[in-house]
């Protein structure tokens, strides 16, 4: 059974998701693993959208950091050539109107129909949702990145989500450190094992039904 450091695992997943992106496209990156995906994108015609008001996000050098130029995670970013700024309703009009090609999001749980929970935990106050629900209903494709299991080893791919769902819409693909799944007709389909992983290991760590 393979073990990774948390960072290695996150980069492994991010790199695999990046390989799935084909330009020309517009991608919105969530907080966490999704943010790392930017490091592995090489196509010139993949543009990043951040919902706080910028299309055309790039890295920024330490020396060029501008405190008024940040992404949705409030981290400093730079502007790509051809970028544009806009207000929050115009930004979410892009998202909700179906004009963003791919949203890459983290998740707490995914059920076996591809529905995800990623904004609230039962028993805790429901304090923040941000743009998660908007991205789920609006992006043409939604890719989920997450560790396959919780800290206690339990599966995050479940028969049913026990946390509040973010949308009734099924995501399109799920990327973990063990495998890549597509959601086909509201069913999880294992389409790829990550390097060194066996189908048995995935089966052992997955509560959700899936086909392969």
């Amino acid at each position, binding site marked *: 059974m393979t073990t990774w450091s948390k960072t290695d695992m996150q980069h492994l997943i991010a790199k695999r998701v990046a390989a799935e992106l084909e330009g020309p496209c517009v991608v919105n990156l969530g907080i966490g693993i999704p943010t790392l995906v930017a490091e592995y994108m090489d196509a010139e015609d993949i543009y990043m959208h951040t919902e706080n008001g910028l299309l055309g996000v790039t890295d920024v050098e330490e020396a060029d950091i501008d405190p008024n130029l940040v992404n949705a995670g*409030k981290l400093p970013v730079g502007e790509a050539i051809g970028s544009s700024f806009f207000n929050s309703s115009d930004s979410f009009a892009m998202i909700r109107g179906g004009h963003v090609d791919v949203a890459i999001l983290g998740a707490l749980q995914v059920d076996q129909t591809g529905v995800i929970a990623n904004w609230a935990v039962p028993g805790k106050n429901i304090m923040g949702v941000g743009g998660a629900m908007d991205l789920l209903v609006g992006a043409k494709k939604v890719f989920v990145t997450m560790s396959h299991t919780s800290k206690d080893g339990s599966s995050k791919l479940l028969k049913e989500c026990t946390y509040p769902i973010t949308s009734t819409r099924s995501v399109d693909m799920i990327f973990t450190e063990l495998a890549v799944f597509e959601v086909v007709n509201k069913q999880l389909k294992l389409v790829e094992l990550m390097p060194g992983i066996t189908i048995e290991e995935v089966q052992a760590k997955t509560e959700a039904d899936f086909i392969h």
Partner: protein
Amino acid sequence: MSKVISDIQDALACVESGHTILVGGFGLVGAPLSLIEGLTEKDVTNLTIVSNNLGESGKGLGILLNQNKIKKGIGSYFTSNRDVGDKYQKGEIELELLPQGTLAESLRAGGAGLGGYYTTTGVGTDLAKGKEEREIDGVNYIFEKAIRADVALIRAHKADTLGNLVYYKTARNFNPLMATAAKKVIVEVDEIVEPGALNPEEIVTPFLYVDTIIQAQQVLTKEGVVNK
């Protein structure tokens, strides 16, 4: 006719206890830091604050929160200030959580005189509870009401003395929307210029939305918020 006022408390004279106040910004980025500080120094209570966040613990709107001046918060991401959860737990504050796109769209609808609108965002989730659901052309939507307020406190980059505004990078965010949705709109800016200095094609907020302009006294820098 200049809308520029030099004293912050004069600018905030229209704010009264019980008011609903829109406060611009995404975290501290684009937040009207000087006006928020002015509000913490003003004797008002029972406020409803509409803002993406309620500041951070002990910073910005977080100070107002700790002063128990906020009766209700309407926003999308209160998680950025742990004090909000504590107060909510104790029943000391009401909260209305909205998806960020819904918060933005409801403000725009308020400014545009609409009653509300149907969105797919939130359908089938806990945030749709109690909201009307309707199928339109085979798609399920929920109804969201427009948001309007007594006062808006916003931040822009430049204002001309008439009140035309332009913004700076991602500090734009909710500010132009909030400028449209309140009876009184007070803006703090980095720079005040003469009418004609801003290109008519580039003005984001036309002057008819703006009542009062002040020169920002607090600025967000790499090193944090500093007095100018």
